[in-house]
């Protein structure tokens, strides 16, 4: 018996319950997504990532053939873990058992738990797996949702600004997979308030998206037709779609690119539409792309004689409900084209990006002093070089970008696993105030990666496999003025998270996050003094699995906001119950939440479970209660149905919301229904 096998035997003896891999774990993916999503407080669309993870779960990666790029889809893996995995595989030969992963440095018990649903080992004789890979699957899904109360936008007379459509939202999705290499997607969406199939809108849905994606050709590694995403380097120059910011997972500060990807999200602005391909020759990869699509914009015609129109603002909401929103729909167009060349070595990856973005009109910079360095013009050329390199237990990465005829931006980072229990991250960024990119998702504290410099350091310590503490600090400066900040300013952020799992089924975690930024004081002067704005969050989470059917989740969160004499406190407490019996047709979950927030600045964001592929992180603000119920019923082997009902009851006030969204009364309720038909 070789040493490897002896170790393996030892691992098997002490390993957790076998058969874990077979359990159907939808709540598991939800927990995973929540841990990823909780740090992003924006209206990010997680459906694409969610779909991807469910797809991998159904078609797990083979440990002996999985590629580094495929591993980046498993977003919980850090670059050092991926390198550790690949090194282990090349040193020790093919994996025999999944539990062998425990022998890899940096693979904690938690990593393994996360990984198991997505991996497998193909053994000789498992020919049926080979055959099934070349099968086609179809998935058709319809989601209908609406707010039950009447909103002002549907009630006011047609003579004033109003919502021209009906108050429901309808989303149709079709997905096609042929084996692992060919996939297609069609998405059709109409938001609440948008007209549907009326005379004003004869084409039915408000938003259409379609894509066809082919992988693993001999030279053409990837080919995308229709809508696609591009994610390269550290997101400084060319990155569209989902990206993660600073969070409790300190390794997440290094972005793991996935290059060319099909697009299937419902975000109506941030994607590419056209053709792109990745051509691989030996260690080199070339990704040329071209994209053209219309964008929402308010276009201002200064002089009709010379027909000189200007884009005064681009809209990214994707909402076309009122006549003015409809007027702006597709008023501008964007053409983007360029190419990425990349070298993939064993330890080194490096690449260069060059592309141009063109609008049909000039973009106008804002008129305020803080807009002074904003982009103006119709054409922007971006160039960038990036690399990442692994050396022993260190992972270094960097990207330097330049927007032609304007500024530079730089990212540089170093990550190391200093011992089996300690890992550390250093991350420096410097974005000049006149650096621009329209596809920029780099780590930043402001609104995009421009006009900012900062230094981030993070530390993660696993005292025992069950007790973990992670910690980061970030100090940042804004060298030019910003909205509501009349002079150059600075700030800092600190996050500490400690988690403890006394048992496999129980996890307690505490998080403290403190952010200080400077902002104008309350005065109404031409130039204001700055005062510090402090925001402190305290969060306690408790998760326990009662038995194989029930799981409880609790959270208490307090936020303290302070700006000069304006001091606010917010409180949120909730109880989640998740019910997911093995093999049952019915599953579901519900939440009862109590919130008590002084005002807007002390609002609290929290992740909410939703129907399959949908996720939301709404803000809880004002005072009241919220309840939601989410159920899923398996009608037949190929048909599943979901139903979600939510209601928020406020304890004070005459109405809810503002503008055309205003609702009379103290409660707001929403309903959502979804049906999925899948054919295998």
């Amino acid at each position, binding site marked *: 018996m070789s040493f490897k096998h002896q170790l393996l035997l030892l691992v098997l003896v002490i390993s957790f319950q076998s058969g874990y891999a077979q359990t159907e774990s939808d709540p598991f993916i939800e927990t995973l997504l929540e841990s990823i999503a909780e740090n992003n407080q924006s209206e990010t669309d997680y459906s694409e990532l969610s779909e991807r993870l469910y797809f991998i779960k159904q078609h797990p990666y083979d440990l002996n053939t999985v590629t580094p790029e495929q591993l980046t889809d498993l977003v919980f893996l850090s670059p050092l873990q991926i390198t550790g995995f690949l090194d282990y595989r090349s040193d020790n030969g093919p994996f025999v058992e999944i539990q062998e992963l425990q022998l890899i440095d940096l693979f904690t018990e938690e990593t393994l738990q996360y990984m198991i649903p997505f991996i497998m080992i193909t053994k000789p004789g498992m020919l049926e797996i080979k055959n099934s890979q070349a099968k086609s699957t179809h998935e058709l899904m319809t989601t209908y949702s609406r707010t039950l109360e009447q909103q002002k936008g549907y009630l006011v007379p047609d003579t004033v600004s109003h919502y021209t459509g009906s108050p429901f939202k309808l989303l149709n999705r079709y997905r096609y997979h042929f084996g692992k290499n060919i996939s297609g997607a069609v998405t059709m969406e109409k938001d609440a308030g948008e007209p549907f199939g009326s005379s004003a809108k004869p084409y039915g849905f408000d938003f259409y998206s379609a894509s066809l994606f082919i992988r693993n050709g001999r030279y053409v590694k990837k080919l995308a037709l229709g809508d696609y995403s591009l994610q390269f380097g550290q997101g400084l120059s060319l990155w569209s779609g989902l990206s993660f910011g600073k969070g409790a997972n300190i390794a997440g500060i290094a972005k793991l690119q996935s290059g060319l990807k099909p697009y299937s999200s419902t975000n109506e602005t941030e994607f590419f539409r056209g053709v792109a391909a990745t051509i691989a020759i030996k260690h080199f990869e070339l990704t040329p792309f071209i994209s053209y699509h219309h964008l929402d914009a308010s276009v201002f015609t200064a002089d009709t004689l010379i027909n000189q129109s200007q884009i005064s603002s681009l809209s990214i909401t994707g909402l076309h409900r009122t006549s003015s929103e409809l007027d702006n729909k597709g008023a501008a167009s964007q053409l983007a084209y360029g190419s990425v060349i990349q070298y993939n070595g064993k330890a080194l990856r490096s690449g260069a990006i060059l592309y141009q973005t063109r609008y049909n009109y000039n973009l106008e910079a804002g008129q305020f002093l803080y807009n002074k360095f904003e982009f103006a013009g119709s054409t922007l050329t971006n160039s960038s070089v990036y690399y990442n390199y692994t050396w022993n237990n260190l992972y270094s990465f960097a990207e330097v970008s330049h927007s032609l005829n304007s500024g530079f931006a730089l990212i540089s980072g170093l990550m190391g696993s*200093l*011992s089996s*229990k*300690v890992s*550390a991250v*250093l991350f420096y960024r410097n974005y000049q105030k006149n650096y621009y990119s329209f596809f920029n998702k780099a780590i930043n504290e402001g609104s995009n990666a421009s006009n900012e410099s900062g230094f981030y350091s993070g530390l993660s310590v696993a005292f025992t496999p069950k007790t973990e503490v992670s910690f980061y*600090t970030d*100090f940042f400066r804004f060298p030019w003025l910003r909205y509501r900040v009349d002079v150059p300013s*600075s700030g800092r952020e600190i996050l500490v998270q400690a988690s403890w799992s006394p048992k496999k089924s129980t996890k307690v975690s505490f998080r403290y996050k403190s952010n200080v930024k400077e902002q104008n004081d309350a005065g109404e002067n031409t130039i204001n003094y700055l005062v510090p704005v402090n925001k402190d969050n305290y969060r306690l989470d408790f998760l326990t699995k009662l038995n194989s059917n029930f799981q409880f989740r609790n959270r208490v969160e307090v936020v303290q906001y302070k700006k000069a004499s304006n001091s606010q406190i917010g409180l949120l407490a909730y109880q989640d119950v998740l019910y997911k019996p093995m093999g049952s047709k019915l599953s579901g979950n519900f939440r009862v939440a109590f919130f008590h927030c002084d005002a807007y600045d002390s609002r609290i964001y929290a992740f909410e479970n939703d129907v399959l592929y949908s996720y939301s992180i709404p803000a809880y603000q004002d005072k009241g209660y919220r309840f939601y119920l989410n159920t899923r019923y398996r009608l037949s082997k190929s048909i599943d149905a979901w139903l979600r009902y939510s209601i928020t009851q406020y304890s004070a006030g005459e109405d809810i919301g503002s503008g055309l969204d205003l609702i009379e009364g103290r409660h707001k309720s929403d309903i959502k229904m979804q049906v999925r038909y899948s054919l295998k």
Partner: protein
Amino acid sequence: MLWLSVILILSTKGLFAQNMNAGARITAMGQTGVALQEVWSIQSNQAGLASLHKPIAAISYLSSIQGTEISTQSIVFAYPYRHQTFGWSMQSFGFSAYKERRFGFAYACNFNDVLYASLNFNYHQLSIAGYGNAGTYSLEAGLQFKPSENLIIGAHVVNPSASSYDTSVDDVLPVFAEAGSSYMFSDKVLISTALVVSSKRIADFRTGLEYSVIPQLAFRGGISTRPFKQYAGFGYAIDHLCIDGAISSHPALGYSPQISLAYEF
């Protein structure tokens, strides 16, 4: 410029009141010396001196505010004798027209390599050109507890009697207490923490990390939260000589580089 700096220093006394420079290693680790053991313990928690086995002398130079001649110079010497260690320290902060000096004498005792205790006596002197001199005394006491090979827990009080110069001098001596721990995660990784509570300010949490790539070469980093400062540094040891460098960054005052040399007899 010079006088501007003086005004800055005098008006931000809170920031400088604790300006005890504990060498480049402890500085680079976020000034978390309360549970660390080395010769510079004499300027952080004197109990750490009791762990020494050989006499050590060390000097340090800190450019307190870059672009000015304001600096901190220190010289320390520790002499272990059986289970006890005696320490002498001298520190000078300021510039030609303004000087704060501090002379210390420490006595530390080692109880079975598990418990370390110390007392420190300081004489402080303030001299401002054209105004004259003032002097006063203060005390410090420290404890360190080492329950295992890897863990040290420390506590330290500075000037508990709140002594200060006489009323003609508008300057105070810092009064604070600190507690913390350090833990060796492996022979390469040391992490230290400290919580400092002063009579004037709220608690300052600090943490530091030392990573020894090879036994002779170490890289260090640290942060403190109030004020928010970031630290980094390195250390290199050749035979009996040890060179340490550190740099700290203050949000308003910028970078302060420092270098220390130590010689073990």
